[in-house]
């Protein structure tokens, strides 16, 4: 099963996510149409595009929160089909951060981080606690470990959500508009955490409209529209001289 990853992508050997000819429909609406994307180990990709362009759907397909209707997705050598064992082994390696944080409101910050490592990875309470505190320290929120999510600001909650995902020691992190639900003054603290994570070599796929972040961190910017990848390239050239009309229009709108 593992060696199915040998479906080597066009360019390199170190691909960790391979998406081929991906199709996704919601009823009659085609959310993704023939999407191909390869993510190399350690690569940072920023997905951008107008709302409804399918970028969130794409990353939600990567850990099978949305089921795809056609094409293939291979994550870390495992192809995502319907088998639950495959799905869960992929989800163990893929961390996800949501726009609306989705912390567990009835658990304290540190318990939020401990739950999955204990239940899924089989860590003892003490081990899970130690790992959780280590990662909470990293996102600089260890002082609030015993508080409940509702007692934290949005930025703090999102940093806890990042720590919670990291506690599973994933190989890839997916970010689904992590700063879109935040007050402006809290965006930076979350982005700083993401930049720090990128600096440590984490493979990241981020759906975001934070173009400053994209410029600073991304190896590649992927622009999507109407369910397809329209253009991709290095951030410098993408922002300076987008090749397609649609990307140009989009950039004009968000940069004012």
């Amino acid at each position, binding site marked *: 099963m593992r060696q199915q990853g040998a479906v080597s992508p066009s360019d390199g050997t170190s691909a960790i996510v391979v998406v081929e000819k991906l199709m996704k429909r919601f009823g009659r609406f085609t959310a993704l149409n023939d999407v191909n994307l390869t993510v190399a180990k350690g690569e940072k990709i920023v997905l951008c595009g107008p709302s409804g362009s399918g970028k969130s759907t794409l990353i939600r397909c990567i850990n099978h929160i949305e089921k795809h209707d056609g094409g293939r997705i291979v994550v870390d050598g495992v192809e995502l089909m319907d088998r639950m064992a495959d799905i869960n082994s992929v989800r163990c390696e893929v961390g996800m951060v949501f726009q609306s944080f*989705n912390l567990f*409101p009835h658990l304290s910050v540190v318990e939020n981080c401990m*739950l*999955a490592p204990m*239940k899924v990875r089989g860590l003892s309470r003490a081990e899970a606690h130690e790992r959780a505190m280590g990662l909470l320290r990293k996102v600089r929120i260890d002082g609030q470990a015993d508080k*409940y999510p*509702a007692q934290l600001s949005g930025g703090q909650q999102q940093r806890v959500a990042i720590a919670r995902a990291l506690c*599973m020691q994933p190989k890839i992190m997916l970010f689904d508009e992590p700063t879109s639900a935040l007050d402006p003054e809290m965006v930076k603290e979350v982005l700083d955490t993401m930049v720090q994570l990128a600096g440590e070599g984490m493979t990241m796929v981020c759906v975001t409209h934070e173009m400053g972040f994209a410029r600073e961190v991304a190896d590649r910017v992927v622009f999507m529209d109407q369910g397809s990848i329209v253009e991709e390239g290095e951030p410098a050239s993408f922002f300076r001289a987008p090749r397609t009309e649609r990307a140009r229009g989009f950039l004009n709108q968000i940069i004012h």
Partner: protein
Amino acid sequence: MNSLDFSILVQAWPYLWSGLLFSLALTVAAFVVGMLLGTCFALVQHFELPVVSQIVRSYIALIRSIPLILVLFWFFFLVPIVLGHLYGNGRPIPIGATWTAFITFGLFEAAYYSEIIRVGLRAVNKGQFEACQALALSTFDTYRCVILPQVIRVASPIILSQTIILFQDTSLVYVLSLTDLLGAASKLAQLNGRLVEMYLVVAMVYLAISSAASQCVASLRRRYALGGAHR
């Protein structure tokens, strides 16, 4: 009747006490059975399990459309006949009034608790399920550690009021000639003729227990308010 005489309470108290204990035992047992079974019923419907969920849904609709007192009668007369056909030569096997009461109340309350929990399940934010999926939690752990604790917390006031109603409904066991708190009081009242005193006292006991239960839940909610069900 122009002067109230509560001195008869002294001799009445042991009998009232045994009636109260029966009411409480029946309430606790029906609560435990009802919540466990009700949660299963709610989950069956939530998962939309084929066939089973239709059966559960019809069961709940049936139970909820029939007065409890009638269900008690049914169980008392029908279950022995059914048991007789299953395990014997067709002669009814009586299960006794006490068993009838415990089984009936448990099954009856399950229908009501299950509706409460089913609605609670629908109220949990979709993002909670997605976060569990993203963390690779099993379905079992998702419900046990994340979803159900939140449902119980949101639904606790409704669960409590249902339980208070249950506590009061235990008085219906008089149709099975069982003696609960109210039954004890009314039997004594007929003996000693002190109707007003007896009914005043039981009313006070019901009031005290029900309001203590409300207070208890209110303080629980305050304690959990910080980690409240709403973000």
